[in-house]
């Protein structure tokens, strides 16, 4: 097989667990020059990413067991897997906050060794990632100054991002004065104003209530479509993964692998009630649920 393990046409379901094994020995440590054709479709590419915590000790824990996938420019990809399957570890590796034990993750053909400037991550726990001493607008503006932008440009971006997430009028409040859902909107606005090529989201809606979650999902889809973003969205919620994405990557329980790459060919714009009632949606969510159940029972 070629060097592109899962650059696949988006037919319905492709099981990739066998494919991941073949690239196992590819360039373990030394940084790879952008030798492969950059801009050849994939914006982000993970190749056989493995991570072991406490290697060689009694607490050795293999979190990632060889994960490969790619995300194209403009795509909305969700990663779904059981709790504790290593999703956060994967996101930390993809965002460059952590180095995987082996394997490479590259963005625009360049291997990620530190946090790339063109990428940002929205954390699950908004209360810990917003800065409580900065007002809403200052939180959104925070990264823009270091990005070297002039004040008018920054002000415009902040205003636009806050408008995109529906928080216009809350600029001078402190995060603590907002509800949980609104705080996560601030965190998303901050990521949007930063205008990364790639937006990573690590279970961003796991700690908000169901109604808020639905409205945040639609807000995200709306912004993704209007602003032409590329999103990699991690969740443990099967409905959410199918509802949002163009493609769902299903992870197995730890050590996690991509056990399926499912294309979601459901028409957009999607609707919380109508889309979820379509036979395609029902079938896909059942498919994903079955995969996760089988993978979990196999692991235990």
């Amino acid at each position, binding site marked *: 097989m070629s060097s592109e393990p899962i650059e696949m046409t988006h037919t319905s379901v492709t099981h990739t667990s066998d494919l991941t094994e073949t690239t196992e020995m590819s360039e373990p440590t030394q940084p790879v020059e952008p030798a492969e054709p950059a801009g050849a479709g994939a914006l982000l590419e993970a190749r056989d990413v493995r991570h072991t915590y406490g290697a060689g000790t009694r607490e050795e824990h293999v979190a990632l067991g060889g994960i490969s996938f790619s995300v194209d420019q403009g795509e909305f990809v969700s990663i779904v897997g059981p709790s504790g399957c290593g999703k956060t570890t994967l996101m930390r590796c993809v965002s460059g906050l952590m180095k995987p034990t082996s394997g490479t993750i590259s963005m625009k053909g360049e291997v990620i060794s530190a946090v790339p400037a063109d990428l940002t991550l929205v954390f699950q726990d908004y209360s810990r990632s917003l800065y409580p001493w900065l007002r809403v607008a200052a939180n959104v503006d925070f*990264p823009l100054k270091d*990005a070297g932008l002039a004040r008018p440009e920054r002000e415009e971006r902040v205003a636009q991002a806050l408008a995109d997430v529906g928080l216009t009028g809350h600029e001078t409040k402190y995060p603590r004065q907002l509800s949980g859902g609104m705080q996560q909107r601030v965190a998303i606005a901050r990521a949007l104003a930063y205008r990364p090529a790639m937006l990573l989201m690590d279970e961003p809606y796991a700690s908000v209530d169901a109604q808020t979650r639905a409205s945040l999902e639609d807000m995200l889809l709306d912004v993704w479509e209007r602003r032409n973003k590329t999103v990699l969205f991690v969740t443990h919620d099967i409905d959410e993964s199918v509802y949002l994405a163009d493609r769902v990557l299903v992870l197995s329980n730890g050590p996690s692998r991509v056990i399926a790459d499912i294309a979601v060919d459901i028409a957009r714009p999607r609707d919380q009630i109508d889309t979820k009632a379509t036979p395609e949606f029902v079938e896909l969510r059942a498919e994903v649920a079955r995969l996760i159940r089988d993978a979990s029972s196999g692991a235990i």
Partner: protein
Amino acid sequence: MSWVRSHLADILIRLAAVGALLAFWWWATSQAESLYFPTPDTVFQSVWNDWLMNFSDSWRENFWPSMKRLLLGYGLAAVASVVIGVAIGRSRTFGQYVEPIIHFIRAIPPPAFLPLFLILLGIEDTQKIVLIAIGVFPPILLNTIEGVRSIDPQQFDTADVLQISTRRRVTHVILPAAAPKIFAGLRISMSIAVILMVISELSATTDGLGFRILQASRQFKYVELWAGIVVLGVVGTVLNGCLVFVERRVLRWSTV
């Protein structure tokens, strides 16, 4: 005005407590009829006549020399402690080198340095400023270290994914996050600074608030002695009030 109305009960309770203390003071001293324990009315009269009527003199002779020593010693120690505290809080290795030394110095009562400093640094202001600084730095330093160490790692992860520069990481993440702890240290240290200021002025001095009290005692002017103590109480309260005012402004985000 609305603030006064909503806090009226609080204000009345506090005034009543102060009134009760004054009443007791007056009653006890007038019963005692002792030279050493003058009644409050004579004490306040002395505050008015000896300190306030010729304020330009007492400012020059007493307030200003004392304030200069206190604010210099306190200010220098505060800045140094916060800088070193951030470094220690962020670097485990640096902390391992420096912390035992800090804990040893902290264990020494600062006035014990006074005779040594008199020999080493002379009787001028330097000696007093250094004494104040030595006593003031441990609480600020230790609180800064603790404040910096207890910052949620996700705040740094967030700064990482947002590509925040090192300088703004210090000014916009580390310092504000540690600010509540730093202010706790600053408040403890302010009272220590006032104590050490007075102690340093009780020997080898010719001006300052502490010197004035010592002088009054030597001249058997017990009313003036008490007046000096009252003035020191007021000075300490005002300094602490200023600090609390600044703290409330800086930490406003934490109480919204």
